[in-house]
């Protein structure tokens, strides 16, 4: 019905446009005669202009600082990804999908071609050639939070305590010891990053008020960043913090900008788990390719329709 209406509306409009056109047949002019002696000038060849790659000073400064040392430490930490009201917890599997991708030989980009150390399941190494001929060692620590896929079982598993502590340490110590930290997990209503099974209400829902009021993860992150400045008198080693979690721009980025001079990648939208995974890989690849703002923005946007992430404070 709507299609029909639109069709007739446009048809009527179209006909009136035709009627409004001057009747060309009535006033038809003969085509202009070619000037016999006219000098036919050769058409100038279209200039092929290669648009120079514009790299902002800010972008160059960022990468000079990032690649200053022969070793770059990057951490990718998957938070505890429960799917309440379901029992399924996904971060262990998402991490493994991520790991399989970075271990593959490179075809496109740089989130690939890593090798794993023999003594640490979570440490991946890659020697990245630099424009000056030297090679930079990329040390990538990829940690996850859940010991299994079932939230109820995880809560009964003593090893979950260790795993949560381990992931939490990978993230929070990374804020002062790593060059880049990427978090892929829940925002917990502003109380994330979170690496433990969530606190529950008596009705087994997530205790949102706890996360909103106490903001345990974020408060810890801000404290860690502030303490670094206070104790050392300068910003820590961290240059980029990526928060691949739902609405992380609104939840975290303003306060982060006030606290530390670091680049922040964040999302204004809710993030679908598959998109967060692809965006995390895109961010890793983009930073290793020394992409500036617009290219990196392309590398980390995802979803359908494509949704951009925010890049602030760097590049």
């Amino acid at each position: 019905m709507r299609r029909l209406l639109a069709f007739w509306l446009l048809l009527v409009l179209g006909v009136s446009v035709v009627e409004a056109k001057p009747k060309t047949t009535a006033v038809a002019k003969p085509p202009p005669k070619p000037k016999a002696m006219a000098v036919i000038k050769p058409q100038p060849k279209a200039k092929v202009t290669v648009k120079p790659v514009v790299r902002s000073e800010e972008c160059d400064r960022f990468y000079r600082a990032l690649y200053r040392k022969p070793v770059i430490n990057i951490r990718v930490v998957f938070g505890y990804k429960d799917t309440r009201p379901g029992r399924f917890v996904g971060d262990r599997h998402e991490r493994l999908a991520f790991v399989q991708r970075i271990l593959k030989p490179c075809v496109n980009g740089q989130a690939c071609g890593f090798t794993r150390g023999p003594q640490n399941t979570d440490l991946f190494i890659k020697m990245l050639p630099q424009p000056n001929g030297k090679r930079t060692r990329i040390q990538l620590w990829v940690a996850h939070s859940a010991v299994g896929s079932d939230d109820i079982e995880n809560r009964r598993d003593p090893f979950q305590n260790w795993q949560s502590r381990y992931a939490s340490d990978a993230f929070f110590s990374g804020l002062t010891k790593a060059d880049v930290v990427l978090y892929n997990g829940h925002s917990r209503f502003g109380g994330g990053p979170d690496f433990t099974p969530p606190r529950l209400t008596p009705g087994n829902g997530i205790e949102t008020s706890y996360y909103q009021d106490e903001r345990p993860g974020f408060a810890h992150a801000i404290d860690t960043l502030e303490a670094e400045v206070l104790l050392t008198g300068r910003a820590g080693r961290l240059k980029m913090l990526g928060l691949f979690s739902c609405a992380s721009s609104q939840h975290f980025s303003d306060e982060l900008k006030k606290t530390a001079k670091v680049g922040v990648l964040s999302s204004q939208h809710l993030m679908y788990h598959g998109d967060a995974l692809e965006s995390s890989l895109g961010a890793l690849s983009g930073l290793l390719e020394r992409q500036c703002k617009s290219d990196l923005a392309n590398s980390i946007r995802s979803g359908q329709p494509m949704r951009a992430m925010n890049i602030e404070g760097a590049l």
Partner: protein
Amino acid sequence: MKQVLHVFQLFVWVIAISAMVEASYAAPNWTQLARKVGISETEAERLQAIAALRADTKLSSNLIAALDSDNRLLALDVIVALSMREMVPELLSRITSDEDGFLTLNLNALLEEKNKDLIFSRYQEILKPAEIAQLSPAAIVAMLEPLGRAGFVLPRASVDELFRQAFPEVRAAVIYYVRMLALRHSRRDHVRVLSEALRAGEFQIRLQAISTLLELTRSSGRPPVTREKLTRRCEKESHPKVKRQCFWILDNPGSVP
């Protein structure tokens, strides 16, 4: 003649624009709804998306086609959200090409008493030593967990081959499987794997084995090892940080509050 041509051109434009107008008013397609099933602001919005998907008469065929496309994850989310168990054979037929493990995970979510034998027998079949190489580590990890939870005992040859896999994640999943068999079903068929895990090169595997052995020691009248032996194992750790973590596990055996 020109006028006729103009009218014809206009007619084509009208058709194109009316189609665009129609598209802008059209109901969201299944992929848009699927995203709302995965992430939505409210539970009401999610339920609305599920209801709209249920009303889509072409949904099954779209989902089957999507399983081999870039929309695979969305299709899997919809299949689980709508409990479309009739899709189990479609999923099982693709399990050996499940690169990221998400298909297997979603298959697990469709497990019920009626289809348990069908799914587990297929898992057992492709976890035979000769078949394992064709599977992705992610798919293996996803398969082992429900098998352990359900108390499904795999043949020794399969478990041994799985524990020889290069991916430490697969070995970690074997430890988890053995733990579930022993703790939830009192089946100690593969507990020997834990001793082997204590000698693993990766410290995470060693710590997981210590935690599991400690748990079995506490929960069983027939402990596989003594606490003293585990303490000695922790003392053997050469790296001070790993040693500290090892003792931390021995001293913090409680579950998550």
